[in-house]
């Protein structure tokens, strides 16, 4: 069991309130991702749940019981840190065994669990090495191993992949997702990378300046962003946000349309412009288009290799049913 509930939680550092009153429920077994730009308070929120920071006001409940004043060691949560935070003076085996040793488990059971974790995470060959002798990916696995052995109520991940190179990151992303499917334990994952959020989450919590902008499944956020911030943050490349005359045509202050929802057409089309930069990826082509009279740069994604380059005139046809409308406050108009 691992339901986590935040009730009117706030956090201040001195006079600065970084988290205004916040309510959030994370259901048992859910993979929840906190995402937002750096400094949005997502790591602070995770540390509040972990107990590594004291909350200023409000309550935190874990499995229905009040954990507000419970020390981190007694909350039954496991955490994987950005820097891995392995114990450098201990072997991989001792690192993984540490939480079990702290729980005063008997040695036979510790060995059994450590060996099982090492098997699952492909660490058996490195079990007697020190963290300093391991690669980044292996260290990350040890950190995960240390978290899973104690069978916690929930896992907390604080940007665990940001120190890995791109290829390894994709691999580890899959491994963590698979681990979640296998263990079916609550996981809370903090990242600034919206791709990680979209690919891994059951539920995404978008944060800005300590405020929850929207909570929902990846596709809910993609299809119906609640405001312009979420619209711009979720999806890659970013949604095009257009104000002014064109928006007024749709009875909105701002309209948004995703790069993949604008078709490149031979002639005619609703909008025209010139190609600034064309990024040919083979499978897709991204155009950054100027002189449309709509926004400084309009981003368009075309499927396959479209042979237009810098300076070429381009005709665009936005799909009318994919246009998002926002009011003057930036909120979505239904």
């Amino acid at each position, binding site marked *: 069991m691992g339901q986590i509930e935040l009730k009117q939680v706030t956090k201040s550092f001195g006079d600065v309130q970084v988290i205004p009153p916040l309510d959030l429920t994370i259901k048992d077994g859910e993979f929840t991702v906190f995402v937002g730009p750096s400094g949005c308070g997502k790591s602070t929120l995770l540390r509040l749940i*972990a*107990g*590594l920071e004291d909350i200023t006001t409000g309550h935190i409940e874990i499995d229905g019981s009040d954990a507000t004043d419970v*020390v*981190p*060691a*007694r909350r039954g*949560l*496991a*955490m994987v*840190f*950005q*820097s891995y*935070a*392995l*114990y*450098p*003076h201990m072997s991989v085996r001792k690192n993984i065994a*540490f*939480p079990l040793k*702290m*729980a005063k488990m008997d040695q036979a059971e510790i060995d059994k669990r450590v060996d099982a974790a090492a098997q699952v995470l492909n660490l058996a060959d490195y079990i007697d090495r020190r963290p300093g002798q391991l690669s980044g990916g292996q260290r990350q696995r040890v950190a995960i191993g*240390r978290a899973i052995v*104690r069978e916690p109520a929930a896992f*907390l991940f604080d940007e665990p992949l940001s120190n890995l190179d791109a290829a390894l990151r994709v691999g580890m992303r899959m491994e963590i997702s698979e681990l979640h499917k296998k263990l079916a334990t609550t996981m809370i994952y903090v990242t600034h990378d919206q791709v990680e959020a979209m690919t891994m989450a059951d539920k995404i919590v978008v944060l800005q300046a300590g405020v929850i902008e929207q909570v929902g499944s990846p596709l809910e956020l993609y299809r119906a962003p609640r405001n312009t911030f979420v619209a711009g943050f979720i999806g890659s490349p970013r949604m095009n946000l257009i104000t002014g005359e064109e928006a007024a045509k749709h009875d909105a202050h701002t309209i948004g349309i995703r790069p993949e929802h604008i078709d490149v057409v031979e002639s005619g089309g609703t909008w025209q412009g010139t190609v600034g930069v064309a990024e040919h990826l083979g499978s897709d082509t991204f155009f950054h288009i100027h002189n449309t009279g709509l926004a400084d740069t309009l981003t368009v994604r075309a499927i396959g290799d479209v042979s237009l380059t810098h300076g070429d005139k381009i005709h665009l046809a936005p799909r009318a049913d994919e246009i998002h409308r926002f009011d003057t406050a930036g909120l979505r108009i239904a």
Partner: protein
Amino acid sequence: MARSVTTQRKTINTTIAWIIGLLIFFPILWTILTSFKTEAQAISDPPLFLFFDWTTENYSTVMERSNYGRFLWNSIIIAGGSTLLGIIIAVPAAWSMAFVPSKRTKDILLWMLSTKMLPAVGVLYPIYLLCIRLGVLDNRVALVIILMLINLPIIVWMLYTYFREIPGEILEAARMDGATLKEEILYVLTPMAIPGIASTLLLNFILAWNEAFWTLNLTAAQAAPLTAFIASYSSPEGLFYAKLSAASTMAIAPILILGWFSQKQLVRGLTFGAVK
């Protein structure tokens, strides 16, 4: 890119380093040499450097006249005891200042250090009276506590500096792994800070071993360490230079040997944090 250094330049640097080293070491060398002279040779003018009749007579006289073993034992107890006690108190203190600093932490650190700026003689009177009142004059336990208090600011400062180098996330990981504060300090912080703790121990042991002001003022026969042993041979008439030198050599020999074998550790500890 490393700077290229010519052989000539290297030779000059080495020579200068040796000259400075010998200058610093000269008083100790002179003491050792004098300890092997007769009393007459010790005060001869011009002074004799290497060509004199080497004798170990001073050593046997000193051994005969005083109980070297007891002084040595007292020195070990006082220096060792105050160092261990200091570390036990300083580790949690430095932990709290390094990992859960408050607004006042910097002030407390400076204030602790400022106590070292006070001339010791300024508090001699009250401490002396306290010792009389408590009946602990010439008492080893009292000296252990007093020397520990005297050196505590330095121990806390040194440990604080080492602890600051340890990433806080590792301690947080220990907390998440279910470690209590005691377990966190015992199993995670201390093993990681071993090099720093070792050099702190060593430096503090040397400081306590050489501490003379308090040991001379607060001891008589029972608790007197090697500093008192040396002092007992310094007579106002100044006729016992050779014996005084022999006593000094015997007093510094243990710490010199300890320092020699641990110099690598000591240097690494003292430059820890300065050079990464």
